């Protein structure tokens, strides 16, 4: 009887706790890639060699563009990608760009600019 009381007590305790929410795959944003603003982009480092991580924070799921421009704003590389609302950890592959300073630009699919950042490829 005593055991039954304990069992009922335990059942009541767990019965009254909030259901555990299912957690999807964790998307941990490193401190140096966190973006405070609701939309924008942030590079892991201003200096790059072959590859640099970038966080792209978006207002909603959709198709966006990552553009790489040289000093006179000429577009030299462009990716069209589907991304989700919030943080998206991506890469910029810089080996093929040559040694110079470039601007990476995040736009909507119809070219509205959401953010820009400068990097130096060495």
């Amino acid at each position: 009887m005593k055991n039954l009381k304990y069992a009922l007590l335990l059942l009541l305790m767990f019965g009254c706790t909030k259901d555990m929410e299912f957690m999807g795959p964790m998307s941990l944003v490193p401190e140096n890639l966190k973006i405070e603003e609701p939309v924008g982009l942030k590079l892991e480092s201003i200096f790059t060699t072959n590859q640099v991580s970038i966080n792209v924070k978006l207002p909603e799921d959709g198709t966006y563009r990552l553009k790489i421009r040289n000093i006179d704003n000429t577009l030299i590389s462009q990716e069209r990608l589907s991304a989700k609302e919030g943080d998206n950890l991506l890469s910029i592959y810089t080996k093929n760009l040559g040694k110079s300073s470039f601007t990476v630009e995040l736009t909507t699919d119809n070219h509205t600019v959401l953010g820009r950042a400068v990097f130096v490829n060495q």
Partner: protein
Amino acid sequence: MKKLLTLLFIFFVGNIFAQDMKLDHSYIDPAGFVVGDTITVKFNTLDWNSSNSAPTLVQYDFQWNNKLLQFIDYTWKVTGNGTNSTAQTAWNTWNGYKFSGDSSFAANKLSDQYNSWVAGDASYGTNADYNVGRITIQDAVAIEHGDSHIEVRFSIKNINSTNYTDYSETTNLNWARAEDNSTGTVYDVDGMTMSVNLGNVSVPTDGGVTIKVDVPHSNKSDMGYSVYHNTQLDATSGYPKQDELPQFSGNFDANGEVVLNDLYQDEEYWIGIHANKGTDQWLDEVITVTDVYKIFQYSLDTDINGGGNSWEYYIQSILAEVTNDQTVDFDDSYELLAHINGVTTSGNVTSDTNGAFNLSGLLTTFGDDQVPFNHKFTPSANQSIFTFGHGLRGDVDFSHSTTPTSTDAKVGGANTTAKTSTQEILMSRAVEQANLDISSRLEEGKVLVDISTTKAGMVGVQFNISFDDTMLELDDIIYDTGNEMTNFGNVKGNKVSFGSLDYKGDVSVKTGTPYKLIFTPKQQLTNTAGLVTFKITEGVKQDGTKVKLNIQ
């Protein structure tokens, strides 16, 4: 009233204490310069308003007037200041650009100018008189104020060969940013000395002889010269004897100029001008689908009519002849078609692999019918500036060559009008602009590059694309250009040359997405940004108009 006072107080205090740092630049040599002197310009920051700013990242742009200053070299000082020995540093330059700041802010509000530039409200435009330098420094600890970051050396040029009247503005600060990466703190930077003013520079009455090369491209500092005295010339050919070495040689500056101080008055000299591919490797951009189309059209006309003689300028028959058989025909067309297809050609075709095949002469007679290339000049008390033209074999549309200015250089003289349809096609005409959408994407494990255009009427299109061959392998090029269009494509290393050309000009490339490239990744990718870059994107219309395809 109280609210108004509060607002005024916030505005007043806000404006006083908005700036955290100053960026300064100045020369460190004793004043009193003469032309040819070297000046050293140092750059440093200062903490301002006792804000205790501690930036771990500083980046700024400046520009210098390349007609007044000749860049020599730079030396990093920040890594020797005792605090920032492990700082990462970068020096980047661009020739022929000038900053157009945001007029909403004063020029010395460097942080505001940076923010405007990033937002697209300030920009760099092409300007042959200016070069831009970008300085980037990042460290794990704060970058010291007061100490020099970098020292940049310039040689002072003779103002007499320019349109400038003084040396008051030889450099300018354009924008600056400063951040503490460890806390995310962004500092506000103002400029201190915004321009370097050299004051009164003594200009010698004998300012040397200025040699200019008048070419329509931005790689002028990759142009070289060799000057011989007339006693070094072969009496028969008029060219320098085989074993003679030039008395003066070197490269032109970014403005296409050089001042030679040791030439003698009233002595005759001979100059040869040549192009080097340099670090930009621009010689592959000289001959494009427009040149190929025009030479095909000329060859068609010549073959049908037995010699259409349809060039606009005499020099075009020299530029177009790349097979050394003294005639322009289909052999030349196919040789140049092979070049734009990325195939190595004979040495007569200007390319990065072959080098330049140069033609040069005094501009006033450049391309003349009788003596197209006059290499000789004689400095005198009355003439110390000489301008030369320069051409590259294969470049019949003068995209990288001097268009002749002399009436004797035009077939039929000054008032030539096109009499045949071929002559219409071969006439020089303004370049058209059109939009193009090229983008890469990741789909089902493949990297796809889509090339889309709405521009109709192009009988030829050419693309040069490079890719990171450590990450990608090209599988295929898919053409959807129309059933009757002739396509070409070739891969050499990490470069893909492809396009289409109907050399008769009868059919044009389909609009939509006429080209698609498919790559297989060599390793797992999250996305594709930067893996594929675009170099040449050009089209040509049936009437011979070059179409510059601007990527959106």
